């Protein structure tokens, strides 16, 4: 590849990373369940796009397979499974409850992003530009998604944030470990599908018994 082309791909990698981070912020701000799901699907698409770009960059066909698996599992299968297992909660059109309001949450997410860059900083010496883009943003996505879980009160948004953590981890992963054995990525994807199935069924059971999926209001078991 010519140096021009490499620089161009690196620009694209950076751009993808930027949009990926934007999706993490979107997941905090989304006010309806369907919106959360759409943002999650978008984020997974960006993960796949980043894997394709890095596949070109690193000459790794494994990453192309990773991209294909991500699209099949996260863009196609997960929305399908969720509609199957937790239909009612998915289509409910109402405002989602949050413990902390959205502007404040976005500020906290911004602070978490800075923290991620600070944490990752010492690891970035002598690395490729792709690592510079993906590693801190993957870290930031993980931190923001953990924060999102704690402020969301309903089952499905919590679950989607959980899946976003996994996205963040693998977004960092594709840059730092391109020759990571494929089985690892497949294991991760398999795991994500199992999570969706299990938690989807569980949230439906909760819905059926208590008429709502607001797990945040479940407080029967607090230690008194």
């Amino acid at each position, binding site marked *: 590849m010519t140096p021009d082309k490499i620089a161009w791909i690196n620009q694209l990698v950076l751009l993808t990373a930027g949009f990926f981070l934007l999706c993490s912020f979107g997941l905090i701000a989304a006010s309806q369940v369907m919106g959360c799901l759409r943002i999650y699907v978008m984020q997974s698409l960006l993960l796949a796009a980043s894997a394709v770009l890095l596949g070109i960059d690193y000459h790794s066909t494994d990453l192309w397979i990773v991209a294909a698996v991500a699209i099949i599992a996260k863009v196609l299968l997960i929305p399908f499974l969720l509609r199957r297992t937790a239909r009612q909660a998915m289509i409910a059109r109402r405002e989602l409850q949050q413990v902390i309001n959205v502007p404040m949450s976005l500020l906290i997410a911004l602070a978490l992003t800075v923290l991620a860059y600070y944490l990752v900083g010492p690891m970035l010496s002598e690395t490729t530009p792709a690592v510079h883009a993906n590693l801190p943003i993957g870290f930031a996505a993980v931190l923001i998604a953990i924060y999102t879980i704690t402020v969301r009160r309903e089952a499905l948004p919590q679950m989607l944030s959980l899946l976003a953590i996994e996205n963040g981890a693998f977004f960092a992963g594709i840059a730092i*470990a391109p*020759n*990571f054995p494929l089985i*690892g990525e497949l*294991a*991760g994807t398999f795991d994500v599908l*199992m999570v969706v199935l299990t938690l989807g069924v569980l949230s439906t059971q909760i819905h059926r018994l208590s008429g709502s999926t607001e797990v945040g209001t*479940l407080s029967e078991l607090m230690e008194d």
Partner: protein
Amino acid sequence: MLIWLTFIMPLLALVVTASGTPLVLAGWISAFAALVNVIIAAVLAAHAADGAPVIAIPHWLGANAFGALILLLETLGALTALIFSIGFLAQHGAPAGRKRRYFIWFNLFLIALYAVPLLREIALVWLALTLTTLFSVFLVSFERTPAALEAGWKYALLTILGAAIAILGILLLYWAQSRAGFTIFTWGQLRASAPKLSPAILNIAFLLILIGFGTKAALIPFHAWLPDTYSRAPFPICAMLSILESAAIPYVLLRIAAAVHLAPGSRADQWLILFGLVSAGGAALLILQTHEYKRLFAYSTIENAGIILTAGAMASSAARHAAIWQIISHSVTKPLVFYAAGIMFLLVGKLRISEVRGVLSRSPWIGTVMMAAGLAMAGAPPFALFLSELAILKAGLASPQAWAAILLACFMIISFCAITFHLFRMVLGKPGTSEAAADTLPTTIPRSCIAALIIAAVPVVILGWYIPAPLAHWLTAATTSLGGRMP
């Protein structure tokens, strides 16, 4: 072949259960499969202790001395938990379909649990640990009450959250290894490559893995899911979760730490000691103020996980030896306690400590068993935990981290006093009028529950006197596999 059989047995039991065999028969077949696995695990442990690990597929599947020992403890717990489940389900009012699914999920859970010590690729160990969560969610929420579902939800959400953090750590570990030119990511390679890895990456990677798996092991302060899960899950499930938290996960963490600490500038051991001490101390205080006896036992599990991690990270092979000993004695003791409590629950029908009084006067044998099991858990002689805790303190005081051993001793004393205080109030005490009225509850204890109790009691009593020679050999081999030498 033996390793394959380990997975085939629960798989067969699962198929038999799913194919519509009468429920009790399905339960006994599952228990029989677990019994076969106990024997397999013992044979594996004997082979692995003689030197080279037993390998089924190079780089993927195999057991070293430590792994085989953990497998043995898991299978032993599974055996008694399945036998106890037969009686537990027989007196339970749940519909037959849900009871059948109980055994199906249980066997799936066992496959994942057995895979943890047998897999050699670290990312797959991670997958197996996550699957143990997913397969046990419906076991935890078996009662299907809103509270049980809530417990299942918290359990799944928080432990999977931990798993997602851990995978980031594992990816960083891979990154460090591939930068140093290593391409195979097994336990052995991790150990071989550790001295050449970048400490900046390694330290963050280990911290993420510790936090991630620590959440699954409910180390303090990542234990938010634990009180609910334990107070709602059926008793045999509590026993299995205890083994998962205090045997399987410490196994993974100690094994990663044993490799990572070889890197110059690694802080793995300090972090293990820090998290271990915080967990042991925090759990001792939580035991003091808890209101439910199931939670009390759960906190005691955290305390033991903390003790094991602290001792396992001390710079002394005698302390590591004692830590693995503690894994053994805790994994045989805790199921016994949950079975005794399960039987006591059938008698009193209450979970709150303040509502349980005078068990001894209502049923002398249940009271005696509960008292003995509780004392065994608290670490009183002549039971297994007494000897191993003593060994930890002795080795710890002689190690460079004597201060940590002194703190551990304090925590052990606090928890001992707290456990015996709660225990005496429940078992002795005078039954009040409300308790006397509650005696209308069915007090026929299923025979299989009693059988599980007796089987579980055997190792606790034996290990309270001495370690049989073969087990001592396996224990030494497991310690050696962590890179320690016998003093």
